[in-house]
């Protein structure tokens, strides 16, 4: 394009030249002298340059030319003032960078589609029970749902299960997922090798088979080529490997997890599997038929579940189906947080832009002469405006590029530090949308902060400016700068208040008493050797007792208790029961519910839970004695109000019948330090481990929980107990060891992350705003040098000058704080969901933050104020 451009220009030049030559020749022919002829021809022609330019315009690419000119000029101007340019670019880079970083997270988590084919057709499935909206699906119900529905292409279920893998190197516990045959096809997964499960292979009684992940194929089997047909020994049973699942599968959705092994759910040896009313922690997922909406599917499933309720009135009473679009179920917890963060980071960017705008305004005064001159020479206002905007855009694009680099580094660091805090964290990264976002934001910023200064400069009062040697300062300009600073301060205040509230929330949550003493408590899993799989429940009891004694004998262990069922801040499990003396409820859904903790006699010692009344279990409460239970105070208040529960009896639906209440313990926060109080199910029930019915006892051999209290270092204790377990039997495995403190910290990590991020933004905002007010005040003080000189000559003291300048600054700051407080009172309400233990209008936080900001502003004004006092009146007066 440019090449043709030049050629056309040359041609035109030649045409004009030849015209002039011919005209001159003509005149010469008619008798004029050659020199006269040439100049007469020139005059007759007119202004050659003007003609050329007008002609150029008709060629239609004048705009490209002008843009080129503007860009080159702008670039020169900026390189001439490197100080200003670098400050502006750094500020913008910072603001745009954190925006890009956060946006890439929002992009990966909220905006990007899920990594499955046609993800909009996927919904997560749950049974809706009277107590839970999203409850576990039973295997039998699932089979009927799959058969009777008309709106789904495929349905699948899965459940986590950890297997002990033996017979291949070191015995270890592996993460497994019990699946129905269509789970992987539904997600569009293609095996790396071999095949997937066939229809019917997930039925109870089918031949065993398993799929393994690429990860474990590499790790345990050295990626050997003849892996298919080899067998895996899981929990003592042999499963032929039929296929390998690709490592790229991201299965962390809706309760499913990426696993090392996938086993058809029919292979689960849990005797409760075929029970229609069993709640076994099974989650489901479905793919809708093309064109079917979620509403239609919900209506269809209502029909299906209604028919099932009619067919199985006892088991399925009140059971419906809950469908949630898959993406919704993943992001709904984090969406609020992410959007709040995005707003916060937007504020920071605004503050950065305000700073740059102020810088430009300050600089603009030095350039009024330049532009007045250009206007006098004929530049139109639009032209000047375009020039200035080009300069701003250059700055903002440079800032944007810097921001991209910063964002890339930031996101990498952030993701390394919080992998599990965010769902879909692995999908966060820089893609086209993020780049476009950065570009868009940069351009918007450039226009935003460039417009006001540009409008001001491009309309100078020509006469005045050219006359006075450039000192024409107008009050209006100062007002704009002042207003911008006030806006900055207000926004910084809002962010600081938000951060302050988050900090207080987090510390409030940390201080919540969980109901137990988390110090030096280790939680882990224990699985007996696979040989015990078919042992009698008595043999299992003996083996577990042996394990417990052995562990208790380890040096740094103070007390040990096995644990089955629920664990505080961990998994939950429920007991169904009714109170003895009252009529037996017709179905399970009408029974009472309580959180179920199946523990041994040392449990209270391990967890430091307070025993309020009566007694806890002893070694005598075992499989040969009558059943006993201990309840917590909430249970007592709920089911035995104003009575002493001790001595009363309840009838347990799944744990063998009547049990006597022998003690009342303190409540433990099962659901989370901050969320337990809101949960509907809080009543807690403790049951002696050894009194578990035989069925459950046999299950526990595969893997039971345990907790112990230790002295000293957690890692060492972990190693010690692992050694102790393997001394009993090489295939007895201890796995998943975590300290209770860590578990609590993990449960708060979300909150902590929010707080840290908000805190960082708030500090950035504070820093930027301080720089802003510093800049403006020192600029204003600089303009008043003359005035200060006069004052000092007339007798003003240094302290008076100091006070005068500080006053200027404090006026702006307090106005900003005032507006900020007013805005925060309104805005913090939006954060209500993220707060805990502190109100959205908490006066202490507001006060502290307000004072902090004012002090920082005062400090920022101090330096220019000091400088102002150093003015030598004589010098100042001499300056014209």
């Amino acid at each position: 394009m440019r090449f043709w451009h030049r050629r056309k220009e040359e041609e035109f030049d030649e045409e004009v030249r030849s015209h002039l030559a011919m005209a001159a020749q003509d005149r010469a022919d008619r008798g004029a002298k050659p020199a006269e002829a040439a100049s007469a021809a020139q005059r007759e022609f007119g202004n050659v340059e003007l003609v050329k330019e007008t002609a150029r315009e008709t060629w239609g690419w004048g705009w490209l030319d002008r843009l080129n000119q503007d860009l080159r000029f702008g670039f020169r101007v900026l390189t001439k003032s490197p100080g200003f340019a670098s400050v502006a670019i750094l500020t913008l880079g910072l603001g745009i960078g954190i925006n890009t970083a956060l946006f890439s997270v929002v992009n990966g988590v909220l905006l990007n589609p899920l990594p499955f084919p046609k993800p909009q057709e996927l919904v997560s499935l749950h049974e809706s029970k009277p107590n839970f909206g999203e409850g576990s699906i039973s295997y039998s119900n699932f089979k009927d749902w799959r058969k009777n529905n008309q709106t789904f292409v495929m349905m699948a279920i899965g459940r986590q299960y950890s297997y002990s893998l033996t017979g291949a190197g070191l015995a270890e516990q592996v993460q497994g997922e019990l699946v129905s045959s269509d789970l992987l096809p539904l997600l569009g997964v293609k095996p790396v090798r071999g095949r997937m499960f066939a229809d019917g292979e997930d039925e109870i009684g089918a031949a065993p088979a398993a799929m393994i992940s690429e990860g474990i194929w590499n790790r345990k089997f050295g990626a050997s080529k003849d892996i298919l047909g080899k067998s895996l020994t899981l929990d003592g049973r042999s499963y032929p490997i039929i296929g390998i699942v690709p490592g790229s599968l991201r299965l962390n959705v809706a309760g499913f997890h990426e696993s090392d092994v996938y086993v058809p759910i029919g292979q689960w040896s849990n005797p409760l599997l075929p029970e229609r009313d069993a709640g076994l922690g099974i989650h489901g997922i479905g793919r809708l038929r093309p064109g079917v909406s979620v509403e239609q599917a919900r209506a269809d499933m209502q029909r299906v579940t209604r028919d099932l309720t009619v067919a199985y009135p006892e088991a399925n009473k009140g059971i419906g189906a809950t469908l949630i679009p898959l993406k919704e179920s993943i992001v709904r917890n984090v969406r609020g947080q992410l959007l709040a963060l995005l707003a916060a980071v937007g504020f920071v960017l605004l503050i950065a832009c305000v700073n740059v705008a102020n810088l430009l305004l300050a600089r603009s005064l030095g350039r009024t002469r330049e532009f007045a001159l250009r206007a006098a020479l004929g530049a139109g206002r639009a032209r000047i405006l375009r020039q200035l905007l080009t300069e701003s855009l250059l700055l903002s694009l440079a800032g944007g590029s810097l921001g991209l680099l910063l964002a890339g580094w930031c996101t990498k660091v952030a993701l390394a530090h919080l992998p599990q805090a965010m769902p879909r964290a692995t999908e966060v990264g820089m893609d086209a949308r993020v780049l476009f976002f950065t570009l868009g934001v940069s351009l918007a910023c450039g226009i935003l902060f460039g417009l006001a200064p540009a409008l001001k400069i491009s309309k100078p009062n020509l006469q005045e400016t050219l006359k006075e040697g450039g000192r024409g300062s107008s009050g209006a300009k100062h007002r704009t700068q002042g207003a911008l600073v006030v806006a900055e301060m207000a926004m910084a205040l809002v962010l600081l208040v938000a951060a302050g509230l988050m900090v207080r929330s987090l510390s409030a949550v940390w201080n919540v008493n969980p109901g137990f003493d988390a110090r030096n408590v280790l939680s882990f899993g224990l699985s007996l050797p696979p040989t015990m799989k078919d042992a009698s429940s008595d043999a299992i009891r003996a083996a577990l007792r042996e394990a417990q004694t052995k562990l208790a004998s380890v040096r740094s262990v103070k007390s040990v208790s096995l644990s089955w069922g629920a664990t505080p801040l961990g998994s939950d499990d429920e007991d169904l029961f009714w109170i003895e003396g009252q009529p037996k409820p017709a179905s399970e859904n009408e029974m009472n519910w309580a959180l179920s903790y199946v523990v041994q006699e040392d449990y209270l010692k391990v967890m430091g839970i307070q025993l309020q009344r009566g007694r806890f279990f002893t070694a005598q409460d075992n499989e040969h004695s009558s059943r006993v239970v201990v309840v917590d105070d909430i249970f007592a208040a709920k089911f035995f109000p104003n009575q002493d529960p001790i001595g009363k009896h309840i009838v347990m639906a799944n744990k063998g019948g009547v049990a006597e209440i022998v003690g009342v313990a303190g409540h433990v926060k099962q659901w989370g330090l901050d969320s337990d109080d809101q949960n509907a199910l809080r009543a807690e029930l403790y049951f002696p481990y050894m009194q578990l019915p035989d069925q459950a006892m046999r299950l526990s051999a595969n893997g039971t929980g345990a907790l112990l209290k230790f002295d000293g270092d957690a890692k060492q204790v972990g190693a010690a107990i692992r050694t102790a377990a393997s001394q009993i039997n090489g295939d007895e495995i201890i796995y998943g060891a975590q300290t209770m403190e860590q578990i609590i910290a993990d449960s708060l990590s979300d909150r902590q992350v929010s707080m840290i991020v908000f805190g960082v933004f708030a500090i950035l905002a504070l820093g930027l705003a301080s720089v802003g007010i510093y800049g403006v005040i020192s600029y204003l003080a600089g303009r008043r040098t003359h005035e200060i000189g006069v004052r000092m000559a007339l007798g003003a003291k240094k302290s008076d000058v100091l006070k005068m300048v500080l006053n200027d600054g404090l006026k702006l700051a307090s106005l900003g704080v005032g507006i900020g407080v007013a805005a925060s009172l309104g805005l913090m309400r939006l954060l209500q969901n993220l707060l805990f233990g502190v109100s959205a209008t908490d006066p202490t936080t507001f006060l502290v933050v307000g004072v902090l900001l004012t002090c920082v502003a005062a400090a920022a004004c101090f330096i220019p104020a000091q400088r102002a006092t150093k003015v030598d009146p004589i010098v100042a007066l001499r300056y014209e």
Partner: protein
Amino acid sequence: MSTQDERLELLQGTLDLLILRTLIFGPQHGQGIARAIQQASEKELLVEHGALYPALQRLEERGWLSAKWGTSSNNRKARFYSLTTAGRKQLLKETNKWKRLATAIGRILDPARKV
């Protein structure tokens, strides 16, 4: 004939019309067109030769003229412009418009006189 100062300045759009008209007699270069207009108007019209060129470019852009390099009568290299078919059509249109305009204005200025 009028002196230099009394010559009339051309209205913008009319220059196009005159150029098109001049080229009816065959291809001509810029100089020639300028001269022709001057002579044909008996030196009444003031045309800055420079103003001609942007107009020529514009007309060429619109497709009413086509241009080619050639040699002039005194052996100088010059760019010759000629009317295209579209140009001819445009000339007819513009001429009609101009005549109607002139008649209308004439009626207003001198209602008695019959044109």
